[in-house]
């Protein structure tokens, strides 16, 4: 459903992403792992339309969406849960969810109910300001906010960053639940172990290029991956 071909992205003179190609099957969980500065966030931000690529082509459901602006991309059904959560601190939890549905014209009550059933803690805190939530709660809110746009493809940039192991497990189980609801997932992670266990398909990025790809379970067994990303 989603395909990238020969994508390159520059920041000024620096080439952050170099001629990468990959695809995402509908209904799967695909992960992109790699060291700091490999270009993972840049890739997601380019897909979301925040950064314009230098060259390459991004296709979603048969449509060329390369270089379109973010509002167009969200409207097409691609959403990004950004690195560092980026909750709106002076909007309430409820407003943060509503703003996730900014482009939608239909009723959103059922979706809010769904998000609250995924994350019951958000329901208890719906009138609290986003900025007063704990890190884990903010991550839940960031995921919930992204779901409010009714995405077909949800991209997540390091959702486990800075969270306690138990919360990380919760987040990953929620990711599977969301996939089971029919949302395709593109996941960037530092936590390679969890990511590879969860993903159907995985790509490894190194200094702007994709160097390895395969089924999540196969890569866990791969020696070079074990050394570089699993610390074994």
């Amino acid at each position: 459903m989603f395909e990238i071909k020969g994508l390159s992205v520059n920041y000024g003179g620096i080439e952050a992403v170099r001629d990468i190609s990959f695809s995402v099957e509908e209904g799967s969980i695909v992960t992109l792992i790699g060291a700091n500065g490999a270009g993972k966030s840049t890739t997601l931000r380019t897909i979301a339309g925040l950064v314009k690529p230098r060259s390459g082509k991004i296709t979603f459901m048969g449509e060329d969406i390369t270089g379109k602006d973010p509002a167009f991309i969200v409207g097409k059904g691609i959403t990004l849960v950004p690195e560092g959560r980026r909750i709106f601190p002076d909007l309430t939890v409820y407003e943060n969810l509503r703003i996730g549905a900014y482009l939608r014209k239909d009723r959103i009550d059922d979706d809010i109910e769904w998000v609250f059933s995924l994350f019951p803690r958000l329901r208890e805190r719906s009138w609290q300001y986003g900025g007063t939530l704990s890190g884990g709660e903010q991550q839940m809110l960031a995921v919930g906010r992204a779901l409010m746009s009714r995405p077909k493809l949800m991209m997540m940039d390091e959702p486990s960053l800075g969270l306690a192991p138990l919360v990380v497990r919760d987040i990953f189980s929620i990711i599977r639940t969301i996939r089971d609801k029919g949302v395709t997932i593109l996941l960037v992670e530092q936590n390679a172990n969890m990511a590879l266990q969860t993903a159907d398909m995985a790509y490894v990025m190194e200094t702007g290029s994709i160097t390895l790809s395969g089924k999540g379970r196969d890569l866990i067994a791969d020696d070079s991956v074990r050394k570089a990303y699993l610390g074994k």
Partner: protein
Amino acid sequence: MAGFFHQNLSYFLSGISVGGQYALIAIGYTMVYGILRLINFAHGDVFMCAGLVMVYLSASLPFAVSVPLVLVFTVALGFLIERVAYKPLRSAPRMSVMISAIGVSYLLQNAALYFTGGLAKVYPEIPFLSRSVVIWDASTRVVTLVTPFLTVILVVLLTLLIKHTKIGMAMRAVSRDFETSQLMGIKINRVISITFMIGSFLAAVASLLYFTNYASVTPTSGSMPGLKAFVAAVFGGIGSIPGAVIGAFIIGICENIIKGGATIFGIPGSGWTTFSDAFTFAFLIVILVVKPTGLFGEKAVDKV
């Protein structure tokens, strides 16, 4: 106290009135700052242009037409300035945008100079607003009484807009985080345009009230009220709308009491009159030293 109040009643009244006018201008400064972190130096001149356009339009059109036209013109002017002078600089350093704002300010003043030939233009007497009234043996004009009420109504409406509508929510989001707002599908340029249009609309309303009191418009008529409204916005904590409104009323009232020649610190009468403008700026310096973030200012979180 009651005696002091009664004695200075007419100055209190004009203080509240001028304060309301400053408040309407100050909201434009504070909202634009809130969303772009830009001090829009041209805002006072937009206010002056609204006054000048009213002079020209009312010469040939009835008030029922010229007043709405002035509002429309000013909103369009605010929109245009943002599009032409600030939007192209969205990713430029903030100093460049600031310089662009100063440029626009001079441009508007020069355009006004060209059209007026540098002569003070007599502001029309808007029938209802210019009428005289006497309350508690202080004589004043209807505009003095109308201003504070109109200001409060507009501020309440604006607050409702920001707190309870979708566009208001988008404004709050954009003022915090451009990028994440874009990820929500918000078109930030549209939100910024709307912010400028609201600010300009309120400045146009302020110009109708203010120039009815002051009777003439010159190319530099916007500087002083613009500056004072800016001080009010800083006093209230720039970025905060209630702050700007409260700051504006305080400055308006203090300035007029001083002008009115009340006995202050045992120095009677007209001894202070000449210092009424200096007061505002002395006040600004004191605020910046004592509480740089103003009454309701957010802590110095710089936007990245």
